[in-house]
Structure formats: C-alpha cells, structure tokens
C-alpha cells in the first residue's frame, strides 16, 4: 500500500478491570460485558414487542380486507391504536437503544458509562410501555397513536408514554456519555466510525424528538387528569408532530447507519467518501426536523411562509442528504464487489452479490423500497399543495409502512441477524428461514404498501373500520368501486404475507437466543466480510470469473469461517483493491458505473412521480 495508508493497531484495552471485557473472535472488538447484556436485553424486548405488534397487524389487515372484515369496530380501533404505538414507539425505540449501546461501547472498544443508568432507562421504558399497553388493550384509550385532543384517553396512556420517553432520554444520555468518555480516554484515534456517527446524528435528533413529545404529552396528561381545562388541538398537533415525525427521522438516521453497517459486514464495503456521507447526516440533523411540520400542511392556522420554509426548503436539504446516501451506499457496495473480482459489465457486481445472505438481502430490499417508494412518496406528500390529495387517506399509512417497515424494520432485522449471534455468542438458528425471511417479509410489504397507496389515491380513508358506510346517516357509495375492493383485499393479503415473514424473523431470533449450543464459531452461517487483518502482500489481483466465496455455492459457504475474508481470497481481494485503485487518483472513486446508472434511474423515477402528482392535482377543482 502507498504511504498514505494508515493501519491502526487495535485500540489499547480500556481502563478498568479486564474481566469486564471479552474479545470478539470474529471482529476482534473488545466487548464490554455489561453493555453486551444491555444490548441483548433491549434487542430481545424490542423483538417481543415486534411480535405482538405483528399479531395486531394481522388482525387489522384482516379487518380492512372487506371480504373477511374480521373484528368488530371497537376492537379494530383499539388494535389500530395498540399496533401503531407498539411498532412505532416500543419496537423501534427498544431496538434503537440496543443500537446506540452497540454503536458506542462495542464499536469504540469502550466501556459503557454507567450500565446502571442503562438499566434504569430500560426499567422506565419497559414500565411505561406496559402501562400504555394496558391502557390501550383494555379499551380505555382508543385514541390512535396520534391521540389528538380533545379525543381523550385514560391518563395511564399518556403517563406510560411520558415515562417511556424519560427512559429513552436516559438511554440517549448513556450513549452520549459513552462516546465522550471513549474520546477522552483516547479510544477514538481519528474520528468516530461512520456507523457511530450515524447513531450520534440519530441521538441528537432523538433529544429534540423526545423533548417535543414530552411537551405534547405532559399537558395532555394533566388535562386527562382534569387538572388542566383544555389542550389546544392545533398547538398539540404542532408539538406532537415534532415527536411523531421527528422520531421517524431518528429512525431514518439510524436506518442509514445500519445500511452502512450491513454493507460493510456483507461485502466489506467502505464508503467512497467519508466526508460526503458525514455531510449527509449533518443535513439530517440541521434540517430534517423542521420538515416535521408537513403534517400540518392542510391544517387551519399556519401561514404560507411557514409552510413553505419549514416543509420544503429545509426538508429538501435533508432530501439531498438522503440522495447522497442513495449514491454512497450502492457505490461502496459496487466498488467492494468489483474488488472481489465481479467487475465485468455494469451490473455483474450486483448479480453476484450475496443475495442469500439475510443481511445483504435486507440491505438491498430496504434501500430499494425506502428509496423508490417511501422516500419519494414522502417528499411528494410533503409538498404543500400536493398534500391535499392524500392527507389522511390510506396513502399515508402506505407511505409510512414503506419507510418505517419496509425500510427501517427490514434494515433492523438485517442487522439483528449479526447482532444477536455476535453479541449473544450463539450460532444463528434456522439459517434457512433467515435466508428467505427478508424476501417474504418485503414481498408482503410491497403488496400491502402498494395497495394502501393506490387505495389512498382513490380516496379511501385511513383508520376506518367499514368502507361500506352501512349505518351512516347519509349513504356513501363511492367506495363500492371494484378497484377499491381489490386494493383492500391486497391490504389484507399483503398483511398476511408480511406477518408470516415477521414471524419467521421472530422464530430465528428467539431460536438463536434460546440456543444452548455454544461455539466459538459464532459467525457460522453468516458471511462477515470485514477488511483483511493485515495489509495484503503481493498477490495477483483476481480478474473476474467465479471465486470461491460465491454465495450460494456450497463450497464457498463451507470455506467461509467466521473471518472468511481473512482467508486467501480476502487477501487476494485486498490486493486487487490495492492494484486497481491508485491512491490520490481522483478517478479511482468513480469506479461505480453501475451505481451511476442506478441513481440516475432513481432520479428519473422521482421526477416522473412528481410530475404525475402535479398532474393529478391539476385535475382537482380550484381550491385555495
């Protein structure tokens, strides 16, 4: 390698009793044992909530499918409330807390500052979640996850959420303290790893979000107790969406961090330009929260300048951040794949990607669906005028199921396939299930979200038990349209398939957790393609064709030990990289022609969807 190479030796053992640490045999990281326990506990709790929320999803999906129409109205609304809260708040935040501890203590080889505070955070979050679940499941708070006043729920609903929020804030504090102390102790030699940096961005966003949530929920709790006469519905909406959408921006930053992590783990990808990727996260932190006001676009009470500045100008700068990631992640994968020898043509690298590896499949599917569907629809819905066409229709859950579920949840599932075996030191259970799971889950979500969005375009409201309006004061026949019936059947069928995929994930996770097999080969069944341990020496670069690491090839799979890429093939790949890319050559970065085609195809799709949306709006009556 050239003189610009920096080969860091592993960071020195952190201060404190060495018994607190173990060395991960796969990654070589020093793992702080108390952090490890907290990570497993939070992640498993998250998975339990995911399983419960999935069960509710099945019941809701089967109710919106008109031919089945499973639940009575009261139970439907009760379960929609519980599903939304369980998934958007409990599943995601417990998992993100696990991610924060992993991104700080484990990736930095550091000691988690005050595990005790971590446990306090966990106890508060769990207690709050259980209290809120109890309020929802007993039917005392059928108020939806948005809980818009003056619709009133049982005080326990709000109190539980507040306690949960405080717990989450404590966890975020533990993360910040851990990062700061790792820096102070010299464990971070240069800058934070990109994944940790992403989680840092998520944590900064989380502080804003959680404070906003407290500002919305505390007065509402006092009002529900009868201690405040009223809560202004418009002010509540403003504060609530600082929390409600803000938390989705936390998910976004965390998800993109997980994308980078998965790209590194599965194909050994290295971001082409650290600075650009970091800039993109900075754009999230600086601008994306202001975009949260887009939920108020068709509310009374906000002026035009406010709408335009907050929901568009600032939001679009955050959109640029997402477009940066949309380039930098596939390009990193492409370069890594080309270094492995898959360099023929534009897309051989993609065709030869490890599609049977659940982490890679989850990365690719999450990136695809989040980008092409969730992200694009979100930006379009956030356009001031266009919002009138979809506000509160089924298009909205179609959008957020493609971001938070097909995007974030799929990515989180993908990283969980690594997190639980490596941190839990157990082999992955049911690898066959794991291999198919991302595809089945994503297929269900594709049907679900596609149907929801199309039905929303036809005007079908969200959160509605009965599309026939049979007992309504004034008959509504507009939804007897056979297209609506078909699309709502799609919602039900998509939900069933997605829940099946979700159940497969839960089975793999719980099977892994309760596995009694202990082995040092914890990475068995997983492809872990970290960079070679030592700088590669002179080995001729691989020049295409098949290589023994081909996924799906049984030979390749057997050859992959926990540190497969440290084997000869990995070294050769490293040498190939050294030979192919001349340090300092500006052209060296641009060796991702396939990605260039992909991102411009994405931009063309984005523009097309945008033009279609305006043309739809143009057909509506003049309004203003």
């Amino acid at each position: 390698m050239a003189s610009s190479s920096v080969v860091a030796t592993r960071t020195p053992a952190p201060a404190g009793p060495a018994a607190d640490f173990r060395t991960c045999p796969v990654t070589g990281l020093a793992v702080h044992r108390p952090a490890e326990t907290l990570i497993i506990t939070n992640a498993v709790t998250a998975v339990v909530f995911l399983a419960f929320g999935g069960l509710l999803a099945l019941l809701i999906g089967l109710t919106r499918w008109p031919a089945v129409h499973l639940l009575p109205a009261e139970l439907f609304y009760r379960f929609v409330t519980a599903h939304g809260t369980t998934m958007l708040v409990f599943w995601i935040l417990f998992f993100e807390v696990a991610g924060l501890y992993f991104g700080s203590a484990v990736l930095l080889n550091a000691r988690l500052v005050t595990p005790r505070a971590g446990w306090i955070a966990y106890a508060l979050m769990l207690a709050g979640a259980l209290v809120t679940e109890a309020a929802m499941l007993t039917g005392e708070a059928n108020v939806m996850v948005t809980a818009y006043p003056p619709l009133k729920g049982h005080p326990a609903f709000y109190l539980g959420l507040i306690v949960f929020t405080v717990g989450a804030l404590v966890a975020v504090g533990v993360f910040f303290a851990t990062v700061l102390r790792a820096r102070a102790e010299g464990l971070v030699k240069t800058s934070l790893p990109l994944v940790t940096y992403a989680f840092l961005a998520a944590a900064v966003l989380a502080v804003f979000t959680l404070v906003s949530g407290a500002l919305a929920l505390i007065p509402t709790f006092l009002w529900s107790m009868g201690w405040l006469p009223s809560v202004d519905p418009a002010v509540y909406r403003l504060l609530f969406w600082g929390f409600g959408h803000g938390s989705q921006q936390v998910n976004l930053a965390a998800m993109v961090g997980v994308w980078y992590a998965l790209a590194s783990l599965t194909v050994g990808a290295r971001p082409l330009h650290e600075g650009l990727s970091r800039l993109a996260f900075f754009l999230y932190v600086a601008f994306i929260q202001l975009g949260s006001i887009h939920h108020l676009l068709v509310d009374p009470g906000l002026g035009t300048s406010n709408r335009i500045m907050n929901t568009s100008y600032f939001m679009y700068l955050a959109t640029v951040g997402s477009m940066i990631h949309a380039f930098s992640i596939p390009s990193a994968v492409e370069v890594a794949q080309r270094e492995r020898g898959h360099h023929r043509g534009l897309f051989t690298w993609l065709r030869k990607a490890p599609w049977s590896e659940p982490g890679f499949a989850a990365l690719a599917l999450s990136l695809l669906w989040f980008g092409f569907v969730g992200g694009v629809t979100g930006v379009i819905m956030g356009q001031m005028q266009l919002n009138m066409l979809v506000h509160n229709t089924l298009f909205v859950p179609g959008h957020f199921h493609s971001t938070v579920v097909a995007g974030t949840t799929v990515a989180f599932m993908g990283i969980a396939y690594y997190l639980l075996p490596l941190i839990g030191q157990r082999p992955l259970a049911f690898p066959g299930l794991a291999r198919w799971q991302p595809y089945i889950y994503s297929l269900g979500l594709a049907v679900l979200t596609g149907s929801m969005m199309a039905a929303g375009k036809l005007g079908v409201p969200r959160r509605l038990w009965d599309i026939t309006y049979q007992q309504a004061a004034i008959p509504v026949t507009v939804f007897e349209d056979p297209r609506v019936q078909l699309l709502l059947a799609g919602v039900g069928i998509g939900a069933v398939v997605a829940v099946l995929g979700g159940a497969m994930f839960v089975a793999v996770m719980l099977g892994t957790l309760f596995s009694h097999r202990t082995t040092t080969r914890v990475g068995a069944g997983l492809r872990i393609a970290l960079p070679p341990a030592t700088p590669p020496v002179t080995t001729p670069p691989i020049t295409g064709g098949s290589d023994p690491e081909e996924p799906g090839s049984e030979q390749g799979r057997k050859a992959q030990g926990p540190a497969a890429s440290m084997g000869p093939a990995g070294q050769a790949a490293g040498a190939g990289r050294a030979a192919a890319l001349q340090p300092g050559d500006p052209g060296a970065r641009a060796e991702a022609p396939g990605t260039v085609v992909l991102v411009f195809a994405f931009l063309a799709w984005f523009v097309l969807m945008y033009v279609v949306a305006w043309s739809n709006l143009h057909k509506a009556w003049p309004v203003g």
Partner: protein
Amino acid sequence: MNGAERGPALHAVAGPGGASALEPPPRVWWGPLGRIERVWLMAGLIWALVMFAMMWIWPHVGHQNTPIESYRMAPADFKAAAEAFIKEHQVGEEFGVPVVEPEPGGEVYLEAMAYQWRPILRLKRGETYRLYVSSTDLQHGFSIQPLNLNFQVLPGYVYVIELTPQQTGEYAVVCNEYCGVGHHLMSGRLIVVD
C-alpha cells in the same frame, strides 16, 4: 478456518475508499469529491430547488392551493352561526339532514361533529364559495370523494376553504380523521348543480 485466534480485524485501511463504516476512518477523510459525486450532489441540489420553487410557482400557474385563511372561534359560537346559516338557506331535507342552497359566490357553513357533516350543500357549478369549516367537538377530516380533496378540521378553529366546483353530480363528504367508535358512520353530501 477457525478465526478464534485471529486478531483484530477492524483496521482502518486508508487509500481510495477509506475505511469500513464500522471502524474509525483515516485521519484525513475530507478530501475533494470525485467527479461523479459532484455531479450527483449538484443534481440533488438542483432537484431540491425545483421542488422548492414549485410551491411558489403553482399559485401563478395552477388553481389548487392550500387554503391558509383561518379564524379562532369557540365551538358553541360556530354551531350557532351554522344554525343561523342553515335556517336562512335551507331548501329541503334529505336523510334527516337539512339541505341548503347558498347564494352563488357566497359564504357557506359546514359543521363537523361526531358523527355527521351538517348541512348537505347544494352548490352551483363554476361558482366560487367560501366554505367555513369547523368542528363542534373533536378533530375530524374533511374529505370530498371521489374528488379526493382532504383537509384537517379542528374544534376552535374555523378554516376558510374557497372551492369552485367544476363538475355536476353528488359528492360524498366523509371523515378521514379518527373521531371515535362511530368514525365510519360520519358522512355528508355535496351536490353540484348547473
């Protein structure tokens, strides 16, 4: 191979492409952008500016813009105003709900309440009406179908929506914000005549 003895794998390997996202980056990670990165960044910025500009441009080229006029008003006062309006303009009754026919170009009151939209409106095609929409109890969603125009309705706030019907026919008004266990019963009607 058994990797148990293999040492640390998370080394920063510098050079083009930098380090893995899981490890600390090289000491200098802020070098110049490559050509294609610059092109893509510019494309993203230009596209963001186009989207930003559209919201300013549409009021000049299109006719569908988000209403921004609204007033604060106590729900009881709005209810009284709506009742007075109905009394003045009522022309009939359907499904037990009054039907009103306001003068073309005039003001129209529409009350949302769990679980009904009141009154039924009969409007003339091509005329512009000022719809005063508010709720007298909870939050509701004002949704005209199959036109698919949707607005949020809050108690205590009167939203002024200027609407110009373009086609004759009967339109459903539904609620698309959850407002209680009878949410799926909340309907209204808008009739456009020549």
